[in-house]
């Protein structure tokens, strides 16, 4: 491919290179050729990005693509298209598939399928234990050789502390992180939402914040003891954020991610809808997610954690489900939110609310996740607009208002509590490896035009 493409006149935000200024980005042969002012590129196709933001493509370290085995919820085609619409150029696929991604053959299947059908980069995350049962370690070295960038039994914690300890030790030898879904299962049994006044209001069984905090504390203690890297998935409570902050301060190798929904929605969304306007108690199954939406105080702590770097990155925990898995009694509904296509706009609430700069948000969605899991070892230059890096680029309109219409999602999962909610901040175009994989308005492209 020898196509040249110039993204001209946008505000280029590239945290890795400390750049936040009006500039042009020249793409050649699928890589970033140059970033600079007034680039003249004869014969290049031009994207006019004036008034828009140009940033490295987002990286999601927590995506459920559901393939193999659960294609009725999502597959690699639909999931990566959803990613592209959300501005993501790399997604890390969680291993809670059927069968679980606990052997090389399953990883190879996913990578082969991704090679054929994915529109963005797919980096697999291997299971920690065989069948994600929490008992015996999976062949972690073989999984790493096959291309896994981290290990996780996500959906469930590694409940047994000794198994977790061994996993951390073993993964250290491979230079990879263990990602833990922190939930002390004996404290969350039957719990379907955050334990608090809303669960009391609704008569639903609660999951206490302490269930997450106890497991985060355990994982930090183990990581500290064996010198391993633990990554806390979808952090959601004040206590957990404070534990990570304290651990980082004393040098523990702990990183953490937070989802857009845990940064913006509270447990009230379950009772009153995401916009708080439900006429009757909503029992909003689309707001049923694990970890559950927490209290306003927890949300504030997550935002502070993201702002001060305690929390390294935003991750979607994109968890698509079929309609019937949500159109049912709350207790019986599946946990999860389809998040790829709203992640940026929802997170922009923090920027519009003055809690985080746009550059910081971009960092937490690009360089932050890349560094948290060490993805640059798998893909040189990922999460940056450095010359020679893959041309993974997103063009954003930070102010554009739009109303979430799940039926228009590329994801098969229409399960979002944000249906009908207006958000500000839109992905205008997504380029993965120099290929335009999503474009909001055809008018954006001045095909064959010449800049200048």
């Amino acid at each position, binding site marked *: 491919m020898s196509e040249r493409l110039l993204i001209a006149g946008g505000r280029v935000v590239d945290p890795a290179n400390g750049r936040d200024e009006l500039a042009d980005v020249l793409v050649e042969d699928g890589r970033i050729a140059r970033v600079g002012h007034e680039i003249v590129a004869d014969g290049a196709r031009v994207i006019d990005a004036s008034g828009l933001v140009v940033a490295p493509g987002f990286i999601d370290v927590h995506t459920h693509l559901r393939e193999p085995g659960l294609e009725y919820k999502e597959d690699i085609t639909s999931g990566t298209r959803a990613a592209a619409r959300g501005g993501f150029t790399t997604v890390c696929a969680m291993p809670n598939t059927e069968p679980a991604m606990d052997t090389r053959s399953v990883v190879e299947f996913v990578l082969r399928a991704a090679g054929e059908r994915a529109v963005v980069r797919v980096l697999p995350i291997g299971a920690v234990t065989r069948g994600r049962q929490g008992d015996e370690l999976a062949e972690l070295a073989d999984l790493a050789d096959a291309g896994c960038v981290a290990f996780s039994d996500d959906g469930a914690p590694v409940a047994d502390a000794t198994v977790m300890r061994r996993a951390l030790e073993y993964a250290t030898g491979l230079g990879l992180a263990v990602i833990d879904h922190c939930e002390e299962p004996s404290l969350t049994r039957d719990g379907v939402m955050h334990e608090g006044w809303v669960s009391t209001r609704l008569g639903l069984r609660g999951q206490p914040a302490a269930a997450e905090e106890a497991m985060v504390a355990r994982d930090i203690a183990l990581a500290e003891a064996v010198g391993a890297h633990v990554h806390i998935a979808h952090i959601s409570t004040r206590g957990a954020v404070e534990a990570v902050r304290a651990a980082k301060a004393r040098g523990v190798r702990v990183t953490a991610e937070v989802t857009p929904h845990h940064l913006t929605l509270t447990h009230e969304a379950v009772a009153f809808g995401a916009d708080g306007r439900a006429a009757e108690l909503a*029992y909003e199954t689309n707001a049923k997610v694990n970890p559950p939406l927490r209290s306003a105080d927890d949300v504030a702590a997550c935002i502070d954690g993201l702002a001060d770097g305690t929390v390294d990155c935003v991750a979607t925990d994109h968890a698509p489900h079929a309609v019937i898995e949500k159109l049912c009694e709350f207790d*019986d509904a599946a946990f999860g939110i389809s998040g790829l296509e709203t992640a940026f706009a929802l997170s922009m609430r923090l920027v519009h609310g003055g809690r985080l700069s746009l550059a910081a948000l971009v960092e937490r969605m690009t360089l932050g996740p890349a560094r948290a899991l060490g993805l640059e070892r798998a893909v040189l230059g990922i999460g940056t607009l450095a010359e020679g890096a893959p041309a993974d680029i997103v063009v954003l309109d930070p102010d554009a208002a739009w109303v979430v219409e799940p039926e228009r999602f590329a994801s098969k999962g229409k399960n979002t509590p944000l249906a009908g909610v207006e958000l500000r901040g839109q992905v205008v175009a997504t380029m993965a490896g120099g290929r335009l994989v999503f474009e909001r308005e055809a008018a954006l492209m001045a095909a064959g035009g010449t800049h200048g």
Partner: protein
Amino acid sequence: MTTDTRAADQTQTLDAPATADEGWRRRHLLDLDDFTVDELEQVMAATDTMKEVLSREVPRVPALRGTTVVTLFYENSTRTRTSFELAGKVLGADVINIAASASSVTKGESLVDTVQTLQAVGADVLVMRHSRSGAPYLAARHATCSVVNAGDGLHAHPTQALLDLYTMRSALGDVHGRKVVIVGDIMHSRVARSNMWALTALGAEVVVCGPPTLIPAGLGTTTAPASSPDARAFSPRRDSKEHPRMETELPPVRVETDLDRAVEGADVVMALRMQLERMHGGFVPGAREYSRLYQVNAERLARAKPGALVMHPGPMNEGIEISHEVAHGLQSRVEEQVANGVAVRMAVLWLVTRTGARGGIRAVGRGAL
């Protein structure tokens, strides 16, 4: 309360517009959490009317003739189902009872499908009991007919609270300023939840009492008009810095863990059923200690106001949450509660059908689908 004349006028036929249903807008009865004082009064007045009907030699009126009431019970409940069935029959409705299995979910028929099927074949009122909190809300969102909640999970049991309220008012006249103590497993009690809403709306002082393990999160952190600081022997940690909504979204009750102190000067003492599985579930050490600390017995009742009412939503575990002598003593209103249940449910069925909600072909004809 309605006047005697009004009651008499209504009961002649009960199918002519009557004062008690004037302005009634609720197609569904899901909970009492958003009931206004006027609405509660309307139900009480309609219940007076129904009591009169039930006292007749032939307690039958054709008020709901041509109306189909389906009781859809996903949980066993002889008492509530029978009460609704009788209520419908007294009013001349056709009553169909369906004992649904909660396992039908796993067999593939969803609640929404079931509800839509039942209303398509002609159900005008769906009386629903379900083990899952919120299930009637889901049903109501997908129904053109009326949905009456006959108990959902841990959440609400509005007709029980209405009959409790009616029973209290029959004896006390008014509940405003009265002290009502609800004792036992508050966490898992839909009866307690609905009662808290109705009673606090009408100005009663509500004290809930039970072991800290059975007090749900956040309860008692809202300010009751008559609360005293020492009443919060156990004040659950949680969410004190919450959204201001918290100030209004839980009923303003006091939480007390010492029953002797809780019943002090009470006008009503309501014991809740203590499910045996809670004891095995580790919420309390066992029946012996539970009954020692939380049984409503003669000694404790003596601390309440003289003649204080003793109530229980049934079925009772005598010897556990209530002593045999108190359960059947002079102050007990348990049988009256059951009797009032029929009248209250007649009132509810009658009121919700005033809104014209229909199932079956009529619904299609009205363009309601």
